[in-house]
């Protein structure tokens, strides 16, 4: 009787072990099921590189290039801001900070990670957006720049914590060797420790980018949501994620608009898949 019970439990455990694979596949399949229908109306090429997104005009124009450019420009901006600052934070926390300050900094960054994105979006709307409007004398502060700044901020916990882990895992002997040869602490950090942790730091940056591309609510609240190909960072833009979030509520189930939004979901899924798989490879190289 006990053996039988244990047999059942162990099968349940195996089954649960497989659920992650099951859900990833299920998500992808359901996205495909709904999203692929859009290619009966537009070719994949026109969908990806079409320059106008007017999903409810007649006939609907379903080109997501402006949306991809919107995501791209915001991601680029956020990366440029967050990577140097994030890596610098990680280096300081892992190598320089005295233990009390380290605890405070880590707690602060954990706190940031815990703040819901809708709260950050709200705060950005109330503070950052008017500020950017005034500084650059713009008609509106809802711009790609606001989005980039906010997202750089939101990507920080991801970048800092993973880069910090990578820096910690550099063998102590490297550091001691360099110090014994008379290098200063700073020379040791930038000549030995950071290069030795480089693939882990790269993974941190990639996961940070993944976080930025996937972010939805904050972006939707502060970038202005204009589906045009941006020519400047001070213009309103609309990202892939915000498009889905903003329009799915209005799209009629089974309409081409609805299918197109799912197709955008496929694009996002594939991007995040690529980012996660490659960063995982980097992290594994780090461990070896």
């Amino acid at each position: 009787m006990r053996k039988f019970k244990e047999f059942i439990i162990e099968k349940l455990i195996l089954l649960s072990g497989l659920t992650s694979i099951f859900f990833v596949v299920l998500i992808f399949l359901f996205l495909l099921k709904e999203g692929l229908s859009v290619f009966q109306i537009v070719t994949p090429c026109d969908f990806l590189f079409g320059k106008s997104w007017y999903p409810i005009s007649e006939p609907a124009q379903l080109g997501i290039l402006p949306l991809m450019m919107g995501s791209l420009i915001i991601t680029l901006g956020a990366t440029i801001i967050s990577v140097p600052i994030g890596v610098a934070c990680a280096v300081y926390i892992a190598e320089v900070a005295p233990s009390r300050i380290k605890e405070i900094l880590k707690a602060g960054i954990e706190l940031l990670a815990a703040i819901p994105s809708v709260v950050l979006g709200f705060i950005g709307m109330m503070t950052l957006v008017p500020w950017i409007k005034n500084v650059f004398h713009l008609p509106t502060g809802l711009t790609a720049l606001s989005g980039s700044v906010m997202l750089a901020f939101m990507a920080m916990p991801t970048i800092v914590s993973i880069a910090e882990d990578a820096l910690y895992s550099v063998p102590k002997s490297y550091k001691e060797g360099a110090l014994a040869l008379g290098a200063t602490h700073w020379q040791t950090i930038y000549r030995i420790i950071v290069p030795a942790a480089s693939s882990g730091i790269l993974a941190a940056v990639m996961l940070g980018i993944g976080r930025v591309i996937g972010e939805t609510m904050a972006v939707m609240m502060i970038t202005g949501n204009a589906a045009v190909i941006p020519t400047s960072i001070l213009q309103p833009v609309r990202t892939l994620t915000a498009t889905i979030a903003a329009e799915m509520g209005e799209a009629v189930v089974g309409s081409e608009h609805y299918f197109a939004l799912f197709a955008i979901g496929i694009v996002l899924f594939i991007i995040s898949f690529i980012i996660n798989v490659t960063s995982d490879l980097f992290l594994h190289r780090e461990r070896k």
Partner: protein
Amino acid sequence: MISSLGKQKIAFFFLFLANLLVIVPVGLILLIIIQKGLPAMTWQFITDIPRQGMRTGGIFPAIIGTIYLVAGSILFALPIGLLAAIYLSEYAKDNVLTRMIKLAIVNLAGVPSVVYGLFGLVLFVSFCKFGASILAGSLTLGIMILPIIITTSREALESVPAMFREVSLSLGASKWQTIRHIVLPNAIPGIITGTILGIGRAAGETAPILFTVAAFYLPRLPKSIFDQAMALPYHLYVISTQVPNVEEKVRYGTALVLLILVLFVNLVAIVIRSQFRKKKKW
């Protein structure tokens, strides 16, 4: 020429500055929300339904909705996540399947939250015919927090010394008895921490519930798990972008309630974790 120690000083100064660039805004954000949100904090604000198109009244249905959603998602994700963690820590061999499971977990953690929303919409709302409901939203959030629960629980299970397992087995206990009586009890604090972090995440997410449960304006409490519900994060989004002329303090007040909820939950996790570290017996 600056000496190398001089260079070090400058470099460390800039590294410190980078930290300030992150930490100071975090502090400011908290400060602003608390300062501007506190005036809205009245008993009525917490316990009343929203009135006059959400411009006055309270946020009680949104708080309750969020609690239902969080409870539902944990009810779904905790058993599966815990069993999956047990599989990875106690049963999985070092092979291709395990590698794939780990990769799937990483991917699940990285899928954009709005894509979870899409998935929940087709699978739970349409395909399973749950409609936009607490059930559909809970399941969607549950899948989203699954990787958090699996990863933290697995770490907790793996930190139980291998020696305990060997001793238990050597006394004639079966593998499951060993897990049940030795490994699990000693991993519980870590599992609770993971669960609480999952709760915090589920309470704060908006995108996954946009199309699966969230009601724009529903000034009553949900009646069953097949009912729609308001939720705090979505409510904050709605009153700050969709409804004109909402008093600033109502918006900040809502943000403050959400923030307190999420940070409190995280604080509990941190306290449990540090208590556990102090008490550790081995």
